């Protein structure tokens, strides 16, 4: 221990017990009598003030969210942005399948039903270069095809 009080010791020496809150006595009394704390007058006030706090926070939050939403949709030029409902997923017409210029599943299926090189010709077409002299189109269609022509169609791959 120092011979002289240093400032910290002086500060500690100056500390005095705080006078208990006037509500402490009633709260302790209530507790001793078995009365639930939230039924006490003081606690009722505390609960009320907490509820008001929650209400104010929610209200303020809602207002802030509204301001955000308005500022988002209300652009600087004063025009309200129209919210367009999501459109249906666009789908191709059936004619797409029948167009030989397009690399559709059906076009490839048909190409697989013709004499040799047609499938490769079709791949050539869709690579951006023209095929050699075109064979006459002959339709076979897999399951019902004659063996020789079907074998030819697959030979190139």
């Amino acid at each position: 221990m120092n011979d002289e009080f240093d400032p910290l010791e002086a500060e500690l020496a100056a500390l005095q017990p705080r006078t208990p809150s006037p509500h402490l006595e009633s709260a302790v009394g209530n507790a001793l009598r078995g009365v639930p704390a939230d039924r006490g007058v003081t606690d009722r006030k505390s609960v009320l003030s907490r509820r008001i706090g929650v209400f104010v926070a929610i209200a303020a939050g809602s207002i802030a969210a509204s301001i955000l939403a308005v500022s988002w949709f209300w652009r600087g030029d004063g025009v309200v942005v129209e919210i367009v409902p999501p459109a249906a997923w666009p789908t191709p017409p059936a004619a797409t399948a029948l167009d030989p210029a397009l690399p559709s599943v059906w076009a490839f299926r048909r190409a697989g039903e013709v004499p040799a090189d047609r499938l490769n010709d079709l791949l050539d077409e869709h690579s951006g270069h023209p095929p050699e002299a075109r064979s006459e189109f002959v339709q076979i269609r897999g399951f019902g095809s004659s063996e020789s022509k079907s074998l030819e169609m697959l030979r190139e791959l």
Partner: protein
Amino acid sequence: MRHFYAVIPLLLLAWPSLAPAQDPTQKSPLAANAALQHWQAFAQMQSLDKDQQKLLEEWSTVALDDPRLEKVLAAGQSSLLYLHRAARLPQCDWGLDYGDGVSLLLPHLAKARDLARLAALHGRVEAGRGNRGALRDDATAIMTLGRHVGRDPIMIAILVRYGIEGVAIDLVAPHVGEFKLPADQAAALFAALPPAKEVKDTIDVEKRYFAAWIIKKLREEEQRQPGAGLKLWRNFLDGAEIPEDVRKIASVNEAIELGEKLLPLYDDLARYVAMPKAQFDAQYPAFKDKTKAANPLAGVIVPAVDQLLAKEHRHQVRIAMLLAAIAVAQGGPDKLKDSKDPFGDGPFAYRPLDRGFELQSKLIFESQPVTLKVGQASKK
């Protein structure tokens, strides 16, 4: 606590500024899609004139001192760069919408085939210069491209897959003896390739998205305008070799009814395709004949799975032969004992050649046993 509630509105107001800005140097998970790299490769492919196109078609036989090669390969440099980037990405999604039915467009197939040929030409030229590393990288990239193309269970995509992977086999086989890659490492490289679909995976797609789609479209067209359904039906049949029974169909309802009767057939088809080859070969022809007799539409709509499977089996054998050939090139013909012909009772047959050797499978394709010639690389 009261102070905390007061902070909530402030946080809400400040939220937009607190949200982190997207860093352009950070890749989103979408960037891991190999299809993006493939499409960049396709976009960079130069338009080839007829002569250059022919050169690309003949990538495996064109003379390595052909003066046209340099120009074609220089023009394809960027495409090859993107192909090699794509090969590092196992995930690939071409973004196909199966709901489009037989209208579904597959523009990547033709591009992928050309890109594979370009890479094979490059690999062959580099191998001719003694750059085995480039050959191996090109072959791996081609193989991966094939797997990426074959990720969709669509028959034509699978055929193109086998075609592209076949290009890689044809590229590597003549140089097998020059590789220093141990056989087990080659097998591990092969096993690490991205998975792809096979013919058996396509049957359900054929049924649900293609056959059922045609029926649905016929119905919709007829409802939209009486007569339009039948017109669409006739357009689908445009061409020759349509059975007379099918040509005679005079109403769209009749076509729809026949089509609907076909749908359960796909379930039978799936069962046949899953059979071992010997069982399939024994049972399928009778099923096919019976089905065609019962429903004339079967010959028009149902795919020829027997021929597709023949292609698939041939491809499987060629892959197995290539891996066996790498082992033989490293350890001699005795190493064949460790391999098995997928369609035979034992290993592949071995036949020495002037330069290299030939492996032969018991599998017959187009009336010939499937073979693979190894170590026949020409120096010019």
